[in-house]
């Protein structure tokens, strides 16, 4: 086959990348679905490899802060030249075993990155872009130095199509409301993160993609716990913004809290006379709160316990012992016997930030509620070797990250958990949380009365 030679064609041929494998025949890499919500699974397959060949599947993500995150796994193709991440075993890398989503949850900052990083998407209107690639051989590093055999781009979304994002600044409350597509009315959720502060929208965006009108509430600025809006009135106002929204079904609104957000959830569910949530989800929280105290007193109480903070071998701060032992009397605890709605508690047994399991267990919630006769409302799920930051599934595990304490001091906090069991906990708990919300906010059974 002859071709007229032309400088352009010759140059073009020079540009063709070489491969360490059979040069002319690239493998076919596919990720299905290529566009998905962050809590949806995908199937990663490679075909057209030589049979029995060693390959590395690799994922790469550039965060909004311009840090690079990656994961990788070692596979061997079968006699047909195929690899299926969902069906085959991974024999090494950032994860091992049969792990369909390992390329996402085992991601970590690339070597040479800054310490203590945490991956959290701020702009939820755009997807997280993850490059999934396949390299020849079993590699542990140097992925940036050579071209892959094949690569595809996967989009991971927090917002489903048609979800509406509405900034809220009303009656003093600050946050972002996410409304599902459709005419409504929808059940509602008040979504509260922890003491790290700021306005994190991604969980609410995801909840709206599952049919819940969800308000991500801003109630504390990073490092400014002492000036946080933690009075009841603030949360009651926010709850009513959701409840009274024209697209929300007013008797189907619940709470979703993590860490400090869980503490507030417990407190409001038990003690507020103005609002009545239909159900509550408390992740990594406790029911410990100086009752009746103004918030400045809460903040002082925390500083008084500073001597109980321990350090691990890396000088990372362990805060769980500040709240131990769980007090016996009621002055430091929410009176959970007064809670009148279903509660789902999700905790990690290796939580190094709060003694969530002890709190859930002991004098705690279970015993207090049993005494009050409302423990049928309580569901506790505890995960061995899971840490504090139990987030939506397939997001990486953060054992210790930088945190801005009160007075804007920067430290590294130990959250705990080991990657694989923590990731399992995230995946399992999210399914259970969605089922719990669906049962209590969507189903047609009437709310349970207190007995």
């Amino acid at each position: 086959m002859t071709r007229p030679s032309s400088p352009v064609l010759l140059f073009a041929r020079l540009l063709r990348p070489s491969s360490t494998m059979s040069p002319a025949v690239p493998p076919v890499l596919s990720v299905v679905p290529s566009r998905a919500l962050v809590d949806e699974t995908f199937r990663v397959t490679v075909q057209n490899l030589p049979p029995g060949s060693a390959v590395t599947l690799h994922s790469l993500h550039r965060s909004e802060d311009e840090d690079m995150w990656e994961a990788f796994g070692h596979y061997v193709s079968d006699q047909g030249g195929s690899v299926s991440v969902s069906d085959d075993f991974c024999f090494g890398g950032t994860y091992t075993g049969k792990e369909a989503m390992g390329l996402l949850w085992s991601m970590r900052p690339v070597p040479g990155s800054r310490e203590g990083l945490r991956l959290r998407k701020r702009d939820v209107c755009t997807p997280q872009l993850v490059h999934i690639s396949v390299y020849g051989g079993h590699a542990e590093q140097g992925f940036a130095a050579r071209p892959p055999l094949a690569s595809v781009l996967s989009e991971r979304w927090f917002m489903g199509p048609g979800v509406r994002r509405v900034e809220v600044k009303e009656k003093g409350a600050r946050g972002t409301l996410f409304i599902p597509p459709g005419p409504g009315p929808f059940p509602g959720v008040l979504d509260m993160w922890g003491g790290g502060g700021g306005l994190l929208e991604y969980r609410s965006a995801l909840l709206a993609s599952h049919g819940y009108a969800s308000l991500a509430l801003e109630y504390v600025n990073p490092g400014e716990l002492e000036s946080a809006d933690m009075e009841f009135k603030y949360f009651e106002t926010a709850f009513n913004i959701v409840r009274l929204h024209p697209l929300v079904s007013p008797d189907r609104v619940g709470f979703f809290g993590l860490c400090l957000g869980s503490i507030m959830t417990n407190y409001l569910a038990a003690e507020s006379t103005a609002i009545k949530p239909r159900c509550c989800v408390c992740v990594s929280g406790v029911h410990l709160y100086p009752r009746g105290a103004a918030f400045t007193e809460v903040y002082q109480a925390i500083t008084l316990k500073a001597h109980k903070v321990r350090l691990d071998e890396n000088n990372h701060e362990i805060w769980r012992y500040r709240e131990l032992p769980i007090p016996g009397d009621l002055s430091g605890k929410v009176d959970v016997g007064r809670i009148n709605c279903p509660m789902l508690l999700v905790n990690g047994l290796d939580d190094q930030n709060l003694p969530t399991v002890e709190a859930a267990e002991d004098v705690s919630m279970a015993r207090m509620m049993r005494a009050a006769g409302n423990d049928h409302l309580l569901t506790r799920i505890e995960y061995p070797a899971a840490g504090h930051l139990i987030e939506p599934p397939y997001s990486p595990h953060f054992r210790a990250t930088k945190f801005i304490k009160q007075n804007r001091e920067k430290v590294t906090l130990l959250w705990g958990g080991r990657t694989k069991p923590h990731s399992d906990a995230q995946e399992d708990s999210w399914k259970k949380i969605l089922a719990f919300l669906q049962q209590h906010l969507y189903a047609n059974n009437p709310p349970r009365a207190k007995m």
Partner: protein
Amino acid sequence: MDRKQCCVKLSVQPSRGLMDEKFLVLVQSVLPGFQLTVYASYRCDDGHSWEAFAHYTANASGTVNVSEDHSLGGTYCGVEPMGLMWSLRPVPGSKPGLRMRKMNVLTPMEVTISVYRGHLTEGFVDQVPLAAVVVERWYMAPGVRRVPVTEGGLTATLFLPSGPGPFPGLLDLWGGGGKLVEYRAALLASHGIASLALDYLTPQITKENDVSVLFYNEWTNVQHPQVIDSRIGILGLSFGTSIALKMAVYSQVFKLRCVVCISGSHVQPIKGSVEQIMTSFHNNVDKTRFNEEQQVIWRDLLLPIPTDPSLKVEVGRLRCPLLMVVGEDDQNWPAHESAVDVKEMMQRAGNDHLLTVLSYPSAGHLIEPPFTPFARASSYKILGPPLQMVMVLWGGETVAHSRAQEDAWRKTLVFLRENLYRATSSSHL
């Protein structure tokens, strides 16, 4: 607000998918035994509205699963996971003769799926649904690159798959209606094949030149470092088949790896430019027939299949695999009769092991990628001269044709992947 049925949960997974992917529509939290209508609506880029709907009854758990439950009526019946897409039709009162074709592949098709109380057949616009979600359907996967090509007087678009490449390539040819239609090439690139959609009828350069020389020039013009020049295939529909077969058999400079011919024929004068081939068909225009609705039937223009070898592409000389896709109710081209003749010719020549024919009863002419609406007839612009609009009968019956599209597309992808990606070279004798 006291409603008997409150807070219906509707979900479609995936909410963002490729055009040829299936989705799962789930309705939950309705009362057991509840009668409902699932409704799909789409407003295309031209501003026309399309709809589809189906009647379901919820089970004892208050759930409807469109992939598993029976539709009791509507624009489709029975268990049809994708019925809401392929049974879409213009809303009542629309202009006649519409055909849905997405010309802008950079944006998705946005379909609204809703749930209505009761078994409705009309008046959807006047009612408030119980729930609604939006589904995106894409022709382009993330990372696929769209490269317009205008060098050398061409009108074409190259779609490159995601990744470093290199990739096998494909020439993607539509039919006699002309225009640059990109969606099939975009979808093929989403499956790993660098595809060039080519408008070969409008530009003067392509009409006047001998086909094989023409395409040689065009291909070298679009030589791209990420396309493997020893792994090129060609896919043609309708008149595109005529071009594809001619190139596959006669080209001195192109050694194609494989050919896919959809709804076409090998009947054509062997020598001649594109324009000359079309003129030869027009010479038989008196064989045009009309059905009761005055829709144009053109299948007889090429019948009977000639015995004179100078009037048919010599498929006995083909040296690469050929996949022919045929609708047995094709009213526009005699695809079925042509396929039968092609098979005989190849059997006589001894190369019929290269031939695969997929023949679908009750399928029509326009066998396209799956899960898009079916048009039994539509308006067609004759390029003339003179320029005129007629209503052309393509043939086919909705359900059978939609199944044919789904099956043919899957098999076409397997055929292309086998022949373009396979490590050992195909049979070049």
